[in-house]
C-alpha cells in the first residue's frame, strides 16, 4: 500500500477500533469490494490471455483458457513496424507536457499567490476552452496546417496537445499553489529572501507533488488522443493510437495481434499510472476542494 493511505488510515483510530472485531457484514462488504475490483480488471486480464495465444486458440469458442502460450501475436505486432508511431507518441506527449508546465506554472502563480484582479474570470476562461469541443476547431486547424505545410508534422500535434492540457494544468497547479501559506511568504519577504530563494525553499516543496500529478495527467491525455492525430497526421507523424485503428483488417482474424498491440500501446500509461497512483488521485481531485 502507498504511504499516503497508510498515513491517512493512521490518523483515523476510531475506525480501526471499529474494524478490530470482524463482523459478518464487514466480511461481506470486503468480499463485494474484491469481487467488483476483479470484475473491472477481468476484460484486461482476458486481453492479456488472448494476446498470449495463437490466433487459432485466441478465436476459439468456447474459449480455450489452458491453450499453450505463444508470442506470435507480439511477434507479428512488432513486425508491423510500430516503432515510428510509438516514437511519435512519446515525442508529442513528452514535449507537450513540458510546454504545458512551462506555460502553466507562471500563470498559476499569477492566479494564486497575490492573484491578479478578476482571477476567477481568467480561471473561467481557461476552463471554458475545455468546453469548446475539439471538433469545432478541427477544420480551421486543418486548413491552416494545409496552407503552411504543417500537415503530417508532429509539431502541429505538440501545439494542439499543449492547448488541450494547459487549462487543466493551470487549474490543478493553482489549487496546489493556493496551499502555500501566505504568512510564510510574507515572513520570507521580511527576512529579505529574494524571489528565487522564496520559490525554491517555500513554494517548491509544497507544489512539487502537484507538478508531478499535473505532468502525469497531461502525459496520459496526450498519449490517448485520437481525433486530431487521425485527421492531421499521415505516414510520417502517425501516433500510436492512430496506428492501432489501422490495425484491424477485414481479412481474417488477428485477435491475438490486436490484443498484443493494444496492450503494448497502453503500457506506458499503465506503468506510469500504477507507479504514481497517489499522484493521480491528487491530480484528478485537482489537489482541490480541500
Amino acid at each position: 500500500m502507498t504511504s499516503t493511505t497508510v498515513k491517512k488510515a493512521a490518523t483515523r483510530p476510531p475506525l480501526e477500533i471499529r474494524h478490530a472485531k470482524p463482523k459478518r457484514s464487514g466480511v461481506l462488504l470486503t468480499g463485494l469490494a474484491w469481487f467488483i475490483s476483479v470484475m473491472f480488471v477481468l476484460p484486461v486480464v482476458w486481453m492479456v490471455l488472448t494476446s498470449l495465444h495463437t490466433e487459432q486458440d485466441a478465436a476459439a469458442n468456447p474459449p480455450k483458457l489452458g491453450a499453450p502460450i505463444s508470442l506470435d501475436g507480439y511477434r507479428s505486432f512488432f513486425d508491423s513496424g510500430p516503432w515510428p508511431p510509438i516514437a511519435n507518441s512519446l515525442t508529442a506527449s513528452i514535449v507537450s507536457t513540458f510546454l504545458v508546465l512551462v506555460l502553466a506554472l507562471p500563470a498559476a502563480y499569477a492566479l494564486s499567490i497575490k492573484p491578479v484582479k478578476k482571477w476567477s474570470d481568467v480561471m473561467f476562461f481557461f476552463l471554458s476552452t475545455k468546453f469548446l469541443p475539439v471538433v469545432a476547431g478541427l477544420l480551421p486547424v486543418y486548413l491552416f496546417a494545409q496552407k503552411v505545410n504543417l500537415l503530417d508534422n508532429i509539431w502541429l500535434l505538440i501545439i494542439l496537445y499543449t492547448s488541450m492540457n494547459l487549462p487543466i494544468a493551470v487549474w490543478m497547479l493553482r489549487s496546489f499553489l493556493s496551499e502555500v501559506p501566505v504568512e510564510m511568504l510574507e515572513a520570507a519577504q521580511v527576512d529579505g529572501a529574494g524571489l528565487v530563494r522564496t520559490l525554491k525553499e517555500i513554494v517548491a516543496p509544497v507544489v512539487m507533488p502537484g507538478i508531478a500529478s499535473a505532468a502525469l495527467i497531461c502525459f496520459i491525455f496526450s498519449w490517448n488522443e485520437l481525433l486530431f492525430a487521425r485527421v492531421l497526421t499521415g505516414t510520417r507523424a502517425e501516433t500510436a493510437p492512430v496506428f492501432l485503428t489501422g490495425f484491424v483488417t477485414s481479412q481474417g482474424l488477428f485477435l491475438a495481434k490486436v490484443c498484443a498491440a493494444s496492450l503494448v500501446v497502453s503500457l506506458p500509461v499503465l506503468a506510469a499510472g500504477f507507479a504514481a497512483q497517489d499522484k493521480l488521485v491528487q491530480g484528478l481531485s485537482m489537489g482541490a476542494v480541500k
Partner: protein
Amino acid sequence: MNKAGAWARRAPLLPALIFMIIVTQLPFLVTLVVSFMNWNAYYPDDRGFAGVDNFVSVLTDVNARKAIFVTVLLTVGVVLISLIVGLCIALLLDRKFRGRGVARTLMITPFLVVPVAAALMWKHALFNPEYGLLNGMLKMVFGDNAPQRDWITDNPLISIVVALVWQWTPFMMLILLAGLQSRPMDVVEAARIDGASPWQIFRSMTLPHLRPYIELSGLLGAIYVVQNFDAVFTITSGGLGTANLPYFIYQTFYTAHDYGRASAAGVVVVIGTIIIATFALRTAFSLFQEDSR
C-alpha cells in the same frame, strides 16, 4: 497599486493566456465564419456567403438531430451511471480491509488503458459474436447450444455505454475516494456515538462533504464524454444510430468535405455546451464559490 506593479503581476499570466487565445479562440472564430458559408471542397466554385442555411440544414437534418440526441443520451447516461457506480465502489474501498491497495490498483486499470485500445478490446475480444468472451462464457456455462448474441448489432448504443462506463467509473471512483479520505472522521465518530444511523451519517455528513468532489468528477467526466470520438469511431463507426456530434462533424468534414455544414454543427455544439456549462457552474455548483485571497 501602481501600473508597473499591476503589469508585473499580470506578466506571468500572459504567455499562457495569449497561447490559449491563439490556439483555441482564433480557430473557433474561423469556424464561426465558415459556418455562414457555402463551402464544399468537392465544389470549389460554389464558395460564398450562405446566411443561416447551414444552421437550418443542421437543425432540420434527421441525422444531425439524431446525433444531438445521441450525444445528450450518451453523456448523461455514461456520466450518471459511472458516478453512481463509482460512488458505491469508493465507499467500499474507503473501508479498511486486507489488500485494499491491490483492489484499488485493479479498479483503476480500466482508466489507464488507452481509449482506442479499450474500444478495440470491447469490440473484438468481448462483444464479437463468434469469438468474443461474452458469447464464449455463455457456451462455457450452457454448452454448445447456448444462445449466441450479436451484442453490438442488437444493442449498439448500450454496447458503447457499457464500454465507456467501464472506462470512466474508475475515474469517478478515484476522485470520490480522495474526497472520502479527506473527511474529518472525529465528527463522524461523534455522530455515531450520539446514535446516528449509517444512513443518516451518509445523508447528512458524507454527501455534503462529497458534494464538490461529485461536482468536479461529473463536470470533468461530462467534458470528456461529450467529446467522445474513440469509442463511437471504433465500436460502431457511427453506424446503427450511434453517431454522436463529434462523429457527425468528423464525417461531414472528413468524408463529405462539407466545410460549411460541419462548421455550423460545431458552432451548435459549442453553444449548447456553453449554455449548459455556464448554467451548471454559476448556479448549481459550489466550485466557483471559494473565496479569493
